[in-house]
């Protein structure tokens, strides 16, 4: 179920639209920001709160790449694997990240610290290869600087 704070935030988001269901994606993100991901009981809570069928909301949640229906680590890493980064050897970057963290893409480290995900173009192709960790963009990743960057995320 939803907390009062979540409900309040969702109501604020819903004010932008003439129809309550339109706040579905905002609501899922509000839940995710607080809980890290969107568990089944949150789908039930949001669907009831926005008066839309739970199955439809689940369909919406699973459609979007940035709504997580499974638990993720404390920090989510998005490594761009689109074309400009590929031309700048992003496959090596992804391999290296995978090696350092000891996980394949799509997985979370055993200590729950990082989830490693591939991402579509992050719109910073002139500074390729790039990745995001949580809300931070990291650019011009030459392989040397990765350890230092990861250290910043506890």
């Amino acid at each position, binding site marked *: 179920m939803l907390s009062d704070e979540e409900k309040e935030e969702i109501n604020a988001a819903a004010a*932008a*639209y*003439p*129809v309550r*269901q*339109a*706040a*579905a*994606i*905002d609501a*899922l*993100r509000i839940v995710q920001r607080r809980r890290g991901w969107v568990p089944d009981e949150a789908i039930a809570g949001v669907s009831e709160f*926005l008066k*839309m069928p739970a199955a*439809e909301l689940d*369909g*919406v949640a699973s*459609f*979007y*790449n*940035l*709504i997580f229906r499974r638990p993720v680590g404390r920090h989510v890493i*998005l490594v761009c*694997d*689109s*074309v*400009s980064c*590929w*031309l*700048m050897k992003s496959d090596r970057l992804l391999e290296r990240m995978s090696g350092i963290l000891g996980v394949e893409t799509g997985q979370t480290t055993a200590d729950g610290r990082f989830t490693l995900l591939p*991402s*579509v*173009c*992050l*719109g*910073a*192709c*002139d*500074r*390729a290869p790039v990745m*995001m960790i949580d*809300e*931070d*963009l990291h650019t011009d990743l030459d392989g040397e600087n990765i350890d230092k960057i990861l250290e910043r995320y506890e």
Partner: protein
Amino acid sequence: METPLTANIRPGREPLDIAAYRKNGGYRAVQKALRSMAPEEVTGAVKDANLKGRGGAGFDAGQKWSLVPMGGNAHRPKYLVVNADEMEPGSFKDRLLMEGDPHQLIEGAILAAYAIQADAAFIFLRWEYRLAAGLLKQAIAGAYRSGFLGRNVLGSGYSLELNLHISGGRYMCGEETGMLNAIEGRRANPRSKPPYPQASGLWGKPTVVNNVETICNIPHIVNNGAGWFRGLSRTGEGGTKIYGASGRVRSPGAWELPMGTTLREILEEHAGGMQAGYRLRGLLPGGASTDFLTPAHLDVKMDFGSVETAGSRLGTGTVIVLDNRSCPVGMVLNLERFFARESCGWCTPCWGGLQFVAQLLTGIEAGQGRMEDIGLLERLAGMLAPGHTYCALAPGAAEPLASALRFFRDDFERHIREKRCPWRDA
């Protein structure tokens, strides 16, 4: 050379706040339009300016607006949507405009909304643009405080609500009817057209969707006139254009240049030519879903008409450069995997076709291809071409594929003959 879109943008520094923006002439176009121009006059000026939509398809902006029902009988509320999704691989121009001068976008949105008499507007922004999100939120709040948004803007009697919608993340959200579904809180599948959004868009009401760069041009057209705007260009299509380059060039980046600047000038003068040890093999002129061009095309003028004549599309105008030390088959595989992953699954030729394309290319790249795969890929590209699918994702996916099979055929055949990728061990 005039660069109206980037005049306020200072690399590495914070964008102008509302006071500084106004000191530089900002929001003067809103004052002018709301006090002295009828909505139809604003649309008329944009039409005369010959502003082609900068989202990739190049549809005439003024003409799009003129399809919106006007007057007392029009369905209300009407909506304006600013497409700030920018998920086309290789594109990063809208990021520059939003991070560099957020008020320019807000001002343009107010003017566009006024021209079609929209009651509400949304900026649809991809989540990953965190910096832009913060700046836009702040800019919107500032515009409300100064009376440029909200009820009775500047005492004109015109009212407008503007909200920022942050995407859940999917390439299909950038397609305009998919975007309407996304804003309504649904999956971003496209809608069949007609009806067009101008007649029946958000919640069935008249809606215009325009790209960020398109909208950023509007204040300058209103301030300086259509003739001035057309004069910025080197060709018949009005204005400047934010071009960009990525890949193995010396100075990747984005630059505001006259519309119609040649590929050669963009790549050699602005991007600084190729990095030492790399040669130009080919390029995608405007994002992942445009046809390859080759070094023989360097004198092509980068406007919508000229690039189309050359066999490709201007798209987003951000050039992706293929160098001689990267495998063309690998590059096409990367592109098609993207399209396969992002296909929404609504139509079979797209969903199934792209899975198959990616599978065949994976085989060829791994040295397990057969010569007949090339013909098969050509047929699949034909199946993805316009007319077979609901939206332009599939045709977009076909463009780099079909053109690569034409220009880099030897490379495909070599992979198959030698049973390996010649670039892999190099």
